[in-house]
């Protein structure tokens, strides 16, 4: 029952926000309008899914933003000029993520510290690769991101596809169940003979994989990169996971919710510009929306507990 409520709230918040946007700007209710509204949401949604993989195992990733920036720089330079080298670098980055997960579990380090440190490493590497904004997007990714499928804009198709894939991997496969079990009760998992080191490394590798996709798609949209291009993704991705019904601890995450949460945050930006709010205020206003939704969720949760107490 509670899991059904969990997904209801993000869906509702997105619907309310979308209705408000359509009310203020009826012309947004078109193929072109929707594409504009959600275009930048795809890389955010991918970064949010990456963050969700980490939160799923009770950790948090403070390096998401700089990692996506790093990947964007690699994409706009190496992946464009020497695709093989580019792919190797990106595969290496995923391996580094996996190694971090193993290290965090093996040495029982706080993930928040390790990923904070890594954020400077990724940021530094990004500056080394691309000291000034530039580079160019590989043609195939540019073509993919600007494709115009019939009826539904690309941004929506990509989001739905992402939600479906993430849901299948995390919620349906048996490996996904074990990964979530690490977040729920790591002791029970290791007592049954699983290597929690390998499981955590796996979760981090998944995060690295989705982070790489986020960086690539971002360059596909912007056509060039910059070492600071995605810095705000760190907080956006955490907010997206929580907005989508996830919790910081206990392995309670929802991939579909996370994607919806990311779309909501992206839409909030557009909504605020429709309200002619200056961009300076937008981040604060996004924060206000986040607090509002979380407050509603808290009220729901409290009512649920009270009801349970009456039944019990």
């Amino acid at each position, binding site marked *: 029952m509670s899991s059904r409520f969990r997904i209801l709230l993000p869906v509702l918040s997105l619907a309310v926000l979308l209705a408000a946007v359509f009310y203020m700007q009826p012309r947004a209710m078109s193929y072109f309008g929707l594409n504009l509204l959600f275009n930048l949401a795809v890389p955010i949604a991918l970064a949010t899914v990456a963050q969700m993989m980490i939160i799923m195992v009770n950790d948090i990733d403070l390096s998401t933003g700089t990692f996506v920036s790093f990947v964007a720089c690699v994409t706009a330079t190496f992946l464009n000029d020497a695709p093989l080298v580019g792919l190797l670098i990106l595969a290496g980055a995923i391996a580094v993520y996996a190694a971090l997960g193993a290290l965090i579990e093996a040495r029982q380090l706080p993930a928040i510290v390790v990923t904070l440190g890594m954020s400077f490493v990724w940021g530094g590497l990004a500056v080394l690769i691309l000291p000034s904004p530039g580079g160019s997007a590989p043609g195939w990714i540019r073509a993919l991101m600007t494709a115009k499928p019939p009826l539904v804009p690309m941004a929506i198709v990509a989001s739905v596809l992402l939600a479906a894939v993430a849901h299948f991997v995390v919620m349906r496969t048996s490996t996904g*169940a074990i990964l979530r*079990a690490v977040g729920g009760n790591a002791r029970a998992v290791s*007592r049954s003979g699983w290597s929690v080191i390998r499981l955590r490394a796996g979760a981090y590798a998944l995060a690295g994989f989705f982070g790489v996709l986020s960086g690539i798609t971002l360059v596909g949209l912007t056509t060039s990169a910059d070492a600071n291009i995605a810095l705000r993704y760190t907080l956006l991705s955490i907010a997206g996971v929580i907005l989508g019904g996830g919790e910081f601890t206990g392995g309670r995450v929802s991939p579909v919710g996370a994607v919806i949460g990311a779309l909501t945050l992206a839409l909030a930006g557009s909504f605020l510009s429709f309200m002619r709010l200056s961009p300076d205020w937008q981040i604060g206003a996004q924060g206000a929306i986040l607090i509002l939704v979380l407050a509603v969720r808290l009220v729901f949760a409290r009512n649920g507990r009270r009801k349970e107490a009456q039944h019990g």
Partner: protein
Amino acid sequence: MHFGAVRALDGVSLTIRPGECVGLIGHNGAGKSTAVNVINGGLTPTAGTVTYRTTGTGAASARAAGIRSVFQELSLCPNLTVEENLRIPQRDLTGPGWRRRARQRIADALDTVFPGHRLQPRMTVGDLTLAERQMVEIAIGFAEGAVPARLVILDEPTSSLDASIARQLLDHVRDFCNRGGAVIFISHMLGEVFDVATRIDVMKDGRITDSRPRNEFTQQGLIDAMGHVATAPAEARKETSAAERIGDEVLRTDEGLTARRGEIVGLSGLAGHGQAEALARFFLSRSKGRRHARHPEVVFVAGDRGRDGIMPLWSILRNATLTTLPALSRRGIVDREAEDRLGADWKKRIGIRTDNMNNPILSLSGGNQQKVLFARSLASTAPIVVMDDPMRGVDVGTKREAYEMIRAEAAKGRTFLWYSTETEEVCQCDRVFVFRNGRISAELTGDEIDEQHILAASFEMKEPAE
């Protein structure tokens, strides 16, 4: 089997054959859990061997031999569904259709063990009640798998089940053994053990002291077998002073805990039966408000020093004066000289073994760290002192000194609430409340305070209800 210097198991020899149900009983720290963890491969014995049907040792071969454990503390993942939880112990649930097979297995197991249950494999465990979770855990223990269950270890399986569900479990255990399975059944409900076991092994101080077929035991005989041979006769007790020392009642809680001025009240029973919670509830209810900081009514002596006792980075002095800081400060600024005086005073009074109170607290031994925690509480003016198993891991000499100190403080009119897992300590008290299943099951005073009575009140005597 050692843990550091502590010998947890000492020459235990236990053989379990198919069709046997062994009831394993014993008091706190008798070594039951350690024995179980050695059997299921979770711990490697420092000496001796464990032999399974399969070759090899360790957790993997224990699993391959069909040994399943259902632990006392819940080991499910609350964020997963019932069927997904089966996936954790069962490695073969992979590939397409794993969910369907898991659902089938867990549903079958639940139907066989607990007919008439209302659990669905798709329910999220976090939404279930405590009893339902325990049912799921037991069902996972008996569920069909790649390796069928041959030996199921049940550690306090009925602690949160009601009588009729517990009866279903006992029936299933008997049935399982008749079909050639084996069960180790650990319970504090002696009635259940008598009901289901074919053999009863009694553990005491890391040894199996008695092992006989069930029908050769009586319940009273079992209680006697669990008790210590009176090694250290309770030293000359404080009978003389008790009468004049104890005054009017100073506290009374909802669950029936009472204490009078100058009295040392013990809380006893098996570990984890609500004693620590009762103390915490009482302490929190009396320590609210701003006035508490300067004139505390209750102070707390922690037993789990690492978790809620010492500040590991602070000096001995800072640790000792923590509770009394408000009294030592003028306008928000700590009077260093008064603090030093207080520290020196208590160093002398309870003999903290250090040459400098400014040394880090971790330079002290466990026993001396505990003395610092005593000093922290006793230096205050609080009339009531709550102690949560304060002598955990403390050497005998320090214990003696602490007993003296507690008695001396009680003589000055302080009241002590003392939870202890060790009977010897409980016997130092004027009055003892024995807890079972979160409630007080007995109140003992004077000569009644001995191991026999405490054990009898800790274990459920009556037959499980129909």
